[in-house]
């Protein structure tokens, strides 16, 4: 699957934002029709039928509804990553054109922050969005500190009749930038805090699913067993190229690595080629440092690919203050 940025503007300023490096330099316009058609053709040639639309806040692109319906007409499955915060006008337009699609064709991932750090007006807009699009929506929550709380999620899922799944993300460092994230040494603490919610996941019949970059060993074997059951056996500890495509047709591996070997989409013939290019780079980083922990170097679960050894951006962060002694590709 590829992630396509419809715009680089955002309505929020989250402290953990790992897209920040990319967004801050934003002077570029939104994705255009011509670029969208090129991307859709490119994905079709690649045999890819799934596409994620994101930003910034993708609904800020004036053509958001046009683009989404166009891709649906071309039989792509479209997933939109949104904050749910949009003007009444945009919400009405979205309702008119998008609300009746089946969830097998169109879905939303609504990234929410804890209500304590969200303004009342933000919460009001999210409420309106979830009221209309609840049945198509999965909540996403990014953990960026160890004293997080996800109690409110369970309430929201029931209140808006959302999909009974929570996408749990972990804020990652952006090499060379300052953003909030959980340091490697605190990940175990984070896991302990997360485990305390297991009973809520079970009681509310909500499956947890991890976004990339969470190492497996921060959980005990017993906790992993429980996670396996809670997630219906689908639990991943991966880290690999997500493939993001910007409005300017530049591609990069994922947001934390948005400054790392950025390339033009026109340099590639298929999504597979892009994936291979960035997988090759990831593997070079892994050759230098196996993962975020020292023990990753010799971990059998990393070799068997049950775990990728945490976010590769943590590994790159190791290199930033040292002499240039590693493979030259790691310093791009």
């Amino acid at each position, binding site marked *: 699957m590829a992630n396509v940025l419809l715009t680089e503007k955002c309505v929020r300023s989250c402290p953990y934002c790992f897209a920040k490096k990319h967004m801050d330099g934003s002077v570029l316009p939104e994705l255009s029709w011509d670029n969208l058609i090129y991307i859709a053709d490119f994905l079709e040639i690649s045999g890819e039928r799934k596409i994620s639309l994101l930003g910034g806040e993708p609904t800020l692109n004036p053509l958001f509804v046009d683009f989404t*319906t166009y891709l649906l007409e071309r039989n792509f499955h479209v997933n939109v990553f949104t904050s749910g915060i949009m003007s009444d006008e945009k919400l009405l337009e979205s309702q008119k054109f998008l609300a009746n699609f089946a969830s097998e064709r169109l879905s939303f991932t609504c990234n929410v922050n804890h209500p304590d750090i969200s303004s009342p007006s933000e919460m009001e807009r999210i409420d309106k969005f979830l009221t209309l699009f609840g049945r198509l929506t999965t909540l996403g929550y990014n953990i960026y500190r160890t004293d997080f709380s996800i109690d409110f999620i369970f309430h929201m899922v029931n209140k808006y009749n959302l999909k009974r799944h929570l996408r749990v993300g972990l804020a990652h460092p952006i090499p060379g930038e300052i953003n909030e994230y959980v340091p490697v040494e605190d990940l175990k603490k984070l896991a302990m805090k997360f485990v305390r919610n297991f009973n809520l996941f079970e009681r509310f019949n909500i499956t947890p699913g991890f976004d990339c970059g969470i190492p497996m060993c921060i959980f005990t074997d017993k906790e992993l067993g429980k996670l396996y059951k809670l997630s219906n056996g689908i639990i991943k500890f991966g880290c690999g190229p997500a493939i993001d495509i910007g409005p300017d047709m530049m591609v990069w591996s994922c947001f934390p690595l948005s400054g790392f070997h950025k390339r033009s989409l026109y340099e590639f013939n298929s999504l597979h080629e892009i994936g291979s290019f960035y997988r090759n780079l990831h593997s070079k980083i892994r050759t230098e440092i196996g993962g975020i922990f020292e023990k990753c170097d010799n971990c059998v679960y990393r070799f068997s690919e049950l775990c990728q050894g945490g976010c590769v951006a943590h590994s790159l962060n190791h290199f930033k203050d040292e002499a240039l002694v590693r493979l030259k590709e790691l310093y791009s």
Partner: protein
Amino acid sequence: MMDHILVCPFNEKLLSRLKQRAVVINTKDFNIIRYINKELDNSNKLHAIRVQTDKPLSEIHFHEEWGKIPLAVYSPEFGEFKNLLHQLNLIRKLNIRIFLSSQHEFNFTGLRILSSLQIACGLYFNEEPHNWDSINDLMHYAIYTKTTHAPIEPFHWVAINYQPSEYTDYSFVYFNNPTQYLHLNDQEQIALTAEDLAKGNFIDQGIKSLDSIHKNKKYIHAENVRYEIMLQMNDCSFCQAFRICLAKFSSLKNKNQTCKIFFSDFLNAADFALSKRNKGNQLWQL
């Protein structure tokens, strides 16, 4: 026996005199499409109905009852995609080609949208197209794109009809080639092209004269002078792309920066399409 397809307005009296002949009906009124089809059902062979409208495409109201009626809709602009959305499924079911003007820049994107959504479409040129780069980009999209998409005319027509040893005249796409189409008005005046008809450049008058049109001096002359420009010392006669352009834009002043670049690329694309057509294992002739 006359074998031309006659391009004429919808005039019941005229059509009653054109029985058993193939016709293209020109109209500006969408409301009479069904009526035209019914009227011609038994008497004439309907080649197509050509509807020229001032409405943007997205504001046209398409009807299921148009069914398999062959339609060529000429619209000046694409309009709003959102407004077209609810009609896409219906349009795909119709026997229709949608043509958009080269005047509006967004039409080039609009044609890509239509083609990628499997709707046959085409570009029609305004008298002096100014956006040759856009035309060239669209031609590249029409011929080189690897995804399955609907034809974009006139590029597709050239791609499937081009032969290096012959002239390839894409005017067929616009019902405008006198070897196949003749144009008639209500007074039964006959012209070689739509432009000639509009300008009053008639070659003959009367339905009866159609049967002997091959003997008509003006017709024969027009046939002979078609390629005469090749013998003149001008930009068009020296242009490598004359074979597919046939000096359609001879009045343009700065040809080296406009039509020549486009048609040279178009010729390369036609060669590419030809080589693709000829690829593969060809069996011996039975």
